[in-house]
């Protein structure tokens, strides 16, 4: 695999917007050309080479690996809308890493700030640390958030992770998140996301969830009153066919949503098991 190496010279004083750093933008360019690419430091337009030492080369996008070294916690938008190839960040990374990407892979060996993988359309984002709020969430005012792909976060994710996630079984789109622990309002307004929390979750997971599956292998600090207990299960089948075994309590919901597909039969009071929202919490 052809590699391009970027090393941050010094931490910028103001946030740096480096949406140019994607395999799509760097591939096929000489190092001299790459150094001249524009990035934004506050309102100043500066060159990539002003802030990074750059070496390596590449020819084909899917064969390109960009390795970035340094404390990038102030560098935003790395990997924005990338469609292939690979980015490895060895350090913390700023907001919006991998937002709207639709292919390829980003690995962050550190923590990520807010909006990591926001509105992901495909590909894989792996964060080997903690992530901020709004991981994989829809940007303000969008009704369709993450549509496909996978986000893995080793540590915790912040609030409103995967807000407005939008999966579709007929469309064969299964947006998926695996995280260590989660903040409040996990998967709010979910329309078919798959969320697996290895540890605990804060309040209101699955709020306003229309479809989707949330599995919490630890505890939840406060369960929404509009979730109804169905019973105990020993195995969970996720919408994408994968299975999780273990003792879980199954809840259906969110029953406060008018559009909820989980219909309650007026005569028998039973909940139909159609394609409705599910929340599983370890027994």
């Amino acid at each position, binding site marked *: 695999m052809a590699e391009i190496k970027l090393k941050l010279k010094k931490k910028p*004083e*103001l*946030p740096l*917007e480096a949406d140019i750093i994607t395999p799509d933008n760097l591939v096929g360019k000489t190092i001299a050309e790459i150094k001249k690419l524009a990035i*934004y*430091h*506050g*309102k*100043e337009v500066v060159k990539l080479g002003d802030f990074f030492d750059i070496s390596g080369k590449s020819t084909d996008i899917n064969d390109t690996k960009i390795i970035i070294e340094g404390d990038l916690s102030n560098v935003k938008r790395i990997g924005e809308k990338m469609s292939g190839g690979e980015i490895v960040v060895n350090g913390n990374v700023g*907001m919006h890493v991998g937002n709207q990407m639709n292919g390829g892979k980003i690995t962050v060996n550190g923590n990520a700030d*807010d*909006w990591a993988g926001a509105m992901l359309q495909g590909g894989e984002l792996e964060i080997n640390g903690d992530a901020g*709020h*709004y991981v994989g969430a829809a*940007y*303000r*005012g969008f*009704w369709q958030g993450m549509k496909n792909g996978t986000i893995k976060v080793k540590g915790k994710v912040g609030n*409103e992770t995967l807000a*407005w996630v939008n999966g579709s079984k007929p469309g064969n789109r299964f947006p998926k998140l695996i995280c260590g622990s989660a903040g*409040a*309002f996990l998967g*709010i*307004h979910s329309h078919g996301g798959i969320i697996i929390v290895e540890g605990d979750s804060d*309040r*209101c997971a699955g*709020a*306003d969830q229309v479809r989707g599956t949330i599995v919490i292998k630890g505890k939840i600090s*406060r369960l*929404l*009153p*509009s*979730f*109804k*207990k169905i019973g105990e299960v020993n195995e969970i089948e996720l919408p994408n066919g994968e299975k999780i075994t273990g003792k879980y309590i199954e809840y259906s919901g*969110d*029953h*406060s*949503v*008018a559009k909820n597909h989980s219909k*309650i039969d*007026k005569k028998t*009071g039973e909940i139909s098991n159609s394609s409705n929202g599910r929340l599983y919490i370890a027994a």
Partner: protein
Amino acid sequence: MVERKIKTIYDVVCPFCGTLCDDLEVDIDIKEDSVIEVRNGCQIGTKKFFSSNPSGHRYLKPRIKTNGEHKEVSWDEAIDAAADILVKAKRPLLYGFSSTECEAQSKGVELAEILGAILDNTASVCHGPSLLAIQDVGAPLSTLGEYKNRADLVIFWGSNPVHAHPRHLGRYSEFVRGYFRKDGRNDRFIIVVDPRNTHTAQIADLFIQVKPNEDYELINAIRAVLRGVELDVKEVSGVSIEKIRELVDMLKLCNFGVIFFGMGLTQTLAHHRNIDAAICLTRELNDHTKFLLEPMRGHYNVTGANQVFTWNTGYAYSIDFSRGYPRYNPGEFSSVDLLIKDEVDSSLIVASDPASNFPAAAVKNLFKHPLISIDPHETPTSAFADVVLPAAFAGIECEGTAYRMDSVPLRLRKVKNAPGECISDKEILEKLIIKVKEKLGE
């Protein structure tokens, strides 16, 4: 005894809170150019008129800080110094705007665009979450006259108008007689939902005490019960299920209901999701009856700031011009977040006092960098500013437009002249724009 020459001005709009009462009568001593009496206004609105009178805390001339002390200077010097700060900054912040008129606000937008600055108004610390929720799920809103004439069920959720909007109750929501509510207070059922037994709660028909920060769960349960779902729990957020059922019946059986929500919903945990849920509840209640909701906006023209910013840039607050075009992302471009992360390198504060109401960590960073304050009188912010540009009080000393909390624009009036060399916010911003353009070589 000295003879006083008094002029009375009628139908004055009160430039204090979002209720924007338009029936004040102000007596002016023409010789002294001072306010001597205000009628019809509430206590807080009246005080603002009196505070415009010449006094020790009003600025009369521009000031520049040299060696830690404010020195009075000429307008030219002050504008030059201010423009210098703004032009040199790589990421300037323009904040405030909610207590001034719309024409000045649009000048603020122009200046921000020229500077590539970040533009924000006080909605980012009050009803910004309401705007986020409205973006997500829409909002069934109306004008205050509709509520006055029609509402027979009024809910104050996390708002305390007795103190924050004193005449709201008398003019629109509680005591006033309406076209279909001939008996005023007797024709309305008032519900207050709040963690505290506020003065508004004490004059309500029903007070629901919700646990702090658990409003979301309560709204969620109400929505589920409204849909006919049997809940597994006996109690939600400190409210029993029986009580929730009773409440839902009341909501369904009223003719016309309205929820007035305040910062008790927007600025407690869950923020915009509280509003999101409240909006969804209101929407779903319309399957049974007529129901609307209304944010209780605080500053008299914060609604105007949102309107002006929106028609100019497409966004209501937290706008970043650093890339030449407006971008919007509260949390990333909102003042408090930027200041806490120390991501701005100079600030221009217009008609606002962030030093009094921002978190300490943000204020510390605000003072660390060059600071310009446009304000009629001394505030904790202006006291620490490097350049102080003295303004006339919009709505008292100069005209302009302001938007009431329900987005109805009203014309503010000039009742007296500004003291000293004070000029309007709009004129100050115009001067700044000319100077900044000159320095940028445009």
